[in-house]
C-alpha cells in the first residue's frame, strides 16, 4: 500500500513536510523507515534513529494495522526543553 509519512526537523528541511512511500500491508516500523530511507539514502542514519508515530502515538515493534486515513509520522530524536 501507498502511505504518506509526515516529516519533522532536519528530515522536513531535507525532504519536505511529507513523503509518499510504498509499504507492505501491516508493515512494521522498520519497514516504513526502510521505505523512507530508499528515497533518501544519505539520511539513512537519521531515519534509523527516528521513532515512528501513528495517529500521534509512538508505535511499538509490533506489525501496524494501517488504515488509509491513519496519520503516519517519523519523529527524529527530540530535543525540546
Amino acid at each position, binding site marked *: 500500500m501507498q502511505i504518506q509519512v*509526515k516529516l*519533522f*526537523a*532536519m528530515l522536513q528541511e531535507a525532504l519536505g513536510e511529507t513523503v509518499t512511500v510504498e509499504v507492505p500491508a501491516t508493515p512494521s516500523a522498520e519497514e516504513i523507515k526502510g521505505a523512507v530511507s530508499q528515497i533518501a539514502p544519505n539520511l539513512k542514519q537519521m531515519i534509523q534513529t527516528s521513532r515512528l*508515530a501513528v495517529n*500521534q*502515538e*509512538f508505535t511499538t515493534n509490533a506489525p501496524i494495522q494501517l488504515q488509509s486515513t491513519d496519520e503516519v*509520522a517519523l*519523529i*527524529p*530524536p*527530540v*530535543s*525540546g*526543553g
Partner: protein
Amino acid sequence: MYYLNIGDSPINVDALYQKLKDPQYGGIVTFVGTVRQWTGDIETKYIDYSAYHPMAEKQLEKLAAPIEAKGARVVIAHRTGHLELTDEAVFVGVAAAHRGDAFRWCEYLIDTLKQEVPIWKKETDTDAVRWGD
C-alpha cells in the same frame, strides 16, 4: 487541573507561577530552561524550536496526568519559534503538599519531556547550524 501550552508567545514565568499557588500546596518547584550562550567552546546566537502539533500537547498530557493523580498541580509551557539568548524555552512547575515530591516530580517531568515530547531545537551557533544537542 494542569495547564499545558506549546506556542510561539514568550513564556510569562510569573503568570505560570501564579497558576501553581493554592492554599492546599506548601511547596512549589519550578524549572526554567533558557537559551544559554556557551556550550563548551560553542557560542550560540539563537535557537528556533518546532513541534509536532498536537502530538506534542498529547504527550505533555500523558506526563502531567499521573502526577496530578497524586494530588499535585502541574504547569508546563514550551515555546516554539525564534528565541534569543536568555529567552525562556521551557517552564515546568509542580505544586505539592510536600517539597520532596515537588522536586522529584518536577525533575521527572523535564527529564521525560526531553525524551518523549516531539519538539526540536535548531541551534544557530557562530560556527554552524546544529539540530538537537
